[in-house]
């Protein structure tokens, strides 16, 4: 039902705004997948903690920029905007939490965040496809 409501709401979205939403969601998807790869790489001892800290900081910054850009889109239906922003916020929180978990050498937490990012990535990908369909 919520998907149907979202689809109806998204249909009102103007072409340009739909393109912008798609572009921002692409950035979010890319950085969410990056965070997941960082988590997996750290868990497999492939990258140092200092890299996790710096790269997750950068990911959080980029996600914040994407969130701000999504906020500014006035022609975007609220339901789509809310779902996208919520997803971005969760990804940012996961980035921070992953950095803390790596600093504390907490592999269990890091594994949990990697799993969470996997689910979030799939959600963002689905959202992106729905926005793409509007163009």
């Amino acid at each position, binding site marked *: 039902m919520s998907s149907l409501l979202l689809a109806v709401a998204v249909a009102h979205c103007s072409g340009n705004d739909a393109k912008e939403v798609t572009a921002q969601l*692409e*950035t979010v*998807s*890319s950085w969410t*997948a*990056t965070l*997941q*790869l*960082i988590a997996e*790489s750290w868990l*497999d*001892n*492939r*990258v*140092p903690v*200092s*890299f996790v*800290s*710096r*790269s997750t900081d*950068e990911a959080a910054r*980029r996600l914040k920029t994407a969130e701000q850009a999504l906020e500014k889109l006035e022609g975007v239906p609220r339901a789509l905007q809310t779902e996208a922003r919520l997803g971005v916020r969760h990804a940012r929180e996961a980035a921070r939490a992953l950095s803390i978990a790596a600093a504390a050498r907490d592999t269990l937490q890091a594994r949990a965040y990697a799993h969470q990012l996997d689910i979030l*990535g799939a959600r963002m*990908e689905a959202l992106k496809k729905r926005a*793409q369909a509007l*163009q």
Partner: protein
Amino acid sequence: MKKILQLALGILTSVGGFFDIGNLVTAMQAGASFRFQLLWTLLLGTVICIFLVELSGRFAAVSQKAIPEAVREHFGFKVWIVPFLVLVLVHMMTIAAEIGGIAFAAQLLTGIDFRLWAIPAAIMVWLLLWRATFSGVEYSAAILGMITLCFVFGALRQHAPMNELLAGAQPTLPHKDEAAQYWFIAVSIIGALIAPYLFYFYSSGAIEDRWDETYVWVNRGVSFAGMSFGALISIGALVVAALVFEPRGIRVDSINQAALSLTEAFPFWGYALFALSLGVACVGATVEVTLSLAYLTAQTFGWRWRENEAPYANSRFAAVYTGALLIGGIVMSSGIDPLKLTLITVATNAAVLPIVSIPFLLMMNDRRILRQHANGIFSNTFMVVIVLLTLLLAVVSIPLLVLGG
């Protein structure tokens, strides 16, 4: 025997000099965003690069003059000064971007912010230029540059699908929605491969190495084998990015993302190999771009120039590379994103390519200077095609940077 040794060393040197932050970033972006679809631009850029490098080396070996010197003498200082100023700007941007690459590599290895590494990186390159001779600089960059072959081995270890690679070697059109990004990356790849500094450095290097007419075949071998070998590394970087990032939907917008590219092929060493490759490639490129700027400036103003001589014997030449490195270091210590600067730089490279290609077309037909080594019909036809292509790139590169970058 000496020439065969020079040929072998020249090929190694070309590998060190060919691959830099621009090649790495654009190849990785292409692989991550379009898998193998943009492989053809790498091949096209390499063919053009081989051709122009061969011309610049042949011109220098036969005439005993580097291109800027000859252009100034042929067309006059007033005609040359505007292209010269544009080239100085492009060189400065490239120097800053390469210093950023060294600093970022140091950040990856130490965890210390890259801004703090920018000035030490510039000082390290300056010391190398100040203390070493041309051959010393050339060969140390070449030997260290071999580490960048890890991208080729990485691609082989991940079993790149040959049929897809062959398909990517043929030009194809992108999906309508991705056209701006596709063409932006295509132009950037060519802009990174045909960087102006390569030709000015190469032709001046031929004079430093005392090439003469008997070196024409050595030049042909170095330009063909060396540039092809160098292009192989760019292809390796594209393939690795295509195999690691594209299936996950990761676009390369940051060097931090690119740093993960070798961790699948080399689980334990991949991260360090990437950082070392980036650092070494950028040290080699910074040395070459900085020397190229010093050569360009000295040849434009008719100053004495020789890296093989002590700095006090060529004080204005040494002052140019000292100042350029200082400015580059200061710019990068301000915190500019090296990747963004690199993308702007390669787009600008593409925009100024006619300044490089048109003098080639004119000078290579001067039979008073080149005698039997002047361009024939085949070379001239290909050169005209290159000039037309560079004019097209000059028109589209900046709009594409705005739309697709």
